[in-house]
């Protein structure tokens, strides 16, 4: 698999760091971080990213708005977005799936869960 560049979006630096370290352990060491949807969208439009891992509850622009903006942008809509969030409401999970999220992980999660969801998404992408 070619080296993929990840963008990790979460307003908590602790969680960004945990996801970044986990991705590195799984074999994806190329990652950048954004603290909310606004910063993430700016980075996505000004850089090259292959995958987004995003929280939902964030100030300025939440994960749903970010997902919607990515899917509405012809240059970005091909990028898979994996939601990693504390939101456990069924309506949120359904909204994320209908909005085009590639996967949904509820916090707290394990390394095995992240690994499994990434593998499923890569398989669908043909990677």
């Amino acid at each position, binding site marked *: 698999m070619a080296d993929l560049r990840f963008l990790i979006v979460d307003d908590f630096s602790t969680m960004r760091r945990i996801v970044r*370290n986990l991705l590195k352990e799984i074999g994806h060491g190329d990652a950048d971080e954004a603290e909310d949807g606004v910063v993430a969208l700016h980075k996505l439009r000004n850089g090259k990213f292959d995958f987004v891992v995003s929280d939902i509850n964030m100030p300025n622009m939440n994960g749903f708005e970010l997902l919607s903006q990515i899917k509405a942008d012809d240059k970005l809509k091909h990028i898979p977005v994996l939601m990693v969030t504390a939101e456990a409401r069924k309506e949120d999970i359904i909204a994320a799936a209908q909005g085009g999220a590639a996967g949904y992980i509820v916090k707290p999660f394990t390394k095995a869960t992240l690994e499994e969801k990434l593998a499923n998404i890569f398989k669908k992408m043909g990677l």
Partner: protein
Amino acid sequence: MSHDNQDNTSTEMFQRLGAITRQLHDALNQLGYTPVLKDTVDELPDARSRLEYIARLTGEAAEKVLNRVDEAKAEQERVIDSSRQLVETIRGVPGLKWAMPELLEWSEKIQQGAERTDHHLTEIMMAQDFHDLTGQVIKKVVSLAATIEEQLVQLLLHAAPQVLTDTDAKKVAEVAATPALNGPVVDPEGRTDVVTDQAGVDDLLASLGF
């Protein structure tokens, strides 16, 4: 129920609420509770700042743990690499393997132990997600406290406007206007609108064909 009946019920309800509010207003003044209410309003910002202090300190503690875990994992990686090389070297020299079998055994144990420690370190790292989860709950409580404070200020403005300054009211309104984030479900028991774990998420998405 007809539209007229609904209107009558609503009017009656609002009249009752109005009466209760008036009674509360009179009771506060007559019983001398206005200063108590003012004290409560004054204490709420302190409660908010204490919660924010907890959030900040737990965040700093989590960062310290992550720093140490990063350092320990790097060291552990070196031990794993070195012990792996040692095992390969011993296995590649038949005379050495037979002359000192315990050397190979110990080297393998070092390698396995280092791998187990690395796994424990990953678990310690993952456990720091408490900061994100508790932080979101604290933000929600802080927002709730701001809303209660705003409501109490409004009550005071009506009951005893002389005890509040315009700055008090403006400051509180600004804090309460900050949108509250939803965050984790603290007590999912008895709720059907939430899932409790990742299996619940996967089942829900699978049932919908995703």
